[in-house]
């Protein structure tokens, strides 16, 4: 199992959680799992076995083959994606608090019956 395959597996687990769970909190957990799997996916794209940090120091020539350098871009992207994921989760939880205060339930089946 390569990290990429694992991340895709985790992605489907998250998707399953979002689609099949009735509890609103569990849906949000599914969404968070999907987000986490994407982070794993991007990081494993940039990973190199026994790679070097992509920093050019004094004395190094710029002719090092890029295959042994770790790709820094996915990590930078994932910092952004993590922040976005947190804001989505926070907003979702805030909505859930409001919904619970109104209806006193978190079950989506019962919520859909309410008017």
């Amino acid at each position, binding site marked *: 199992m390569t990290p990429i395959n694992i991340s895709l597996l985790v992605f489907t687990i998250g998707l399953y959680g979002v689609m099949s769970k009735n509890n609103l909190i569990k*849906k949000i957990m599914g*969404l968070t799992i999907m987000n986490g799997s994407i982070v794993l996916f991007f990081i494993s794209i940039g990973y190199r076995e026994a790679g070097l940090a992509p920093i050019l120091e004094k004395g190094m020539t710029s002719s090092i083959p890029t295959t042994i350098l770790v790709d820094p871009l996915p990590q930078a992207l994932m910092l952004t994606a993590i922040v976005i994921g947190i804001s989505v989760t926070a907003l979702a939880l805030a*909505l859930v608090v409001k919904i619970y205060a109104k209806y006193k339930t978190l079950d989506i089946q019962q919520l859909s019956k309410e008017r």
Partner: protein
Amino acid sequence: MSIHNPILIIISPLLAAFLVLLTRKYKTILATVSILASIVFVSTLSSQILSGNKITYHLGDWGGPLGISLVVDGLSFFFSLIILGLGLLVIIYSIPEKRYGRTYYFLLLISLSSMIGVIYTADIFNMYVFYELLSLAVYLLIAYPKTGVTLRASFNYLIMGGVGLSFFLLGIGFLYAMTGTLDIFHIAERLPAAFDSSMRMVIMSFVLVATGIGIKIAVFPLYGWLPDAHSMAPSPVSALLSGVTVKIGIYCLIRVIYTVFSTEIFLLIGNNNILLVLGVVSLLFGASMALAQKGLKRLLAYSTINQLGIVLIGLGIGTELGLTGALFHVLNHTIMKSTLFFCAGIMIAETGTRDMKGLSGFGRQQPAITFSFVIASLGMIGIPPVNGFVSKWMICLAAVEVGHIVLVVIILISSAIAATYYFRAIQVLFSSPPKPNSMTAHEGGPVIYGGNFYRSWPIYILVAGCLLFGLLPVLGISLVKPAVSLLLFNVVP
């Protein structure tokens, strides 16, 4: 100054959004002025774009595959005009309502600025970030009245939208893994080589990205969030959602198909039939569901699914005429649907009910608003002097040109269904006035300054637009032309 125009168009509403939070008195003026400033910046670019040039702006002077650049070409120029025009009218329409505080204008400006961001950026990850920002602002705008139904609608949309954008991001990951760049145009250059070596990865990335966007534009099996979100939101927000937010998804779809996966690869992966089938299914489904609705805004929401089906058919046909029709229909649908939602907002505020039956007699109280409603619904059905007819006609002609006569029949059937439900609404409006005891509006005192006088101006402007584009379609087509020639021939006219 003029070099920096593309970024100024995005920054002006973004800056105003944060300034709005500081002031209570001048919030509406600030919001209006910032959008007007953006419109001025766009119009300075117009002569260059319409003569066929493409403007590239490198953020921080980092060019090439490393930096992020903004690209204004025919397609993005066309969509940004729609967004800013409707955004201005939405703000003007919201001004008389007392309920809308500073945060409302803050969210409105954030969503408008991030929409332009999605459209101008040439970096696909940046596109994702702007799209997520837009979605966050929109979820909050839907939940703004904080009633039970709006909270549930917003939560539903959040879950569906979150899943959609996760798919989109995973697709971007596959694209990056294959090409090693995030710039749309560089991906397009390197993708054919990747297609030869690892075909499955390319197909996978296309499927993921298309599914993600498909949730956002509510194609048939993925439409679940749309009717609630569009019908429960405050009326100006409904107009914004139906008018432009969904169109951002259409824009991303066009960009992905025509620029990222250039047409040849797209044809190899599957073919245009995917779009045609999805379009036909959404078209018929939206039309028949709208027929069953009792609430006016819910009917309009299902009608959006119906009209997006027509746009997808136009894109699926893919000839010059089909694309022109599809893009022109995007413009027309924005104008007509926002007119209808604005009218519905006034009707709901006046009669105090969302139910269509409660609207009876409205036509005699407010003939001008009702007349606008009638004109826009005629456009939706596709009756000649109004703009909706022209674009539907072009798509039908394109279908005949390619030899799909069935499509014409299907579009006609859906128009007939549309006629049924819109005429039902119009009939209710003109039926006998309600009994006096059923008037339950204005329970908590009047919510609107100065009656509906100010709110009706945006409607009249939009209706004038409906008739203008209906009688002189050349105006609209000349806007669409640079975009179409860019998509088809990848060259300037």
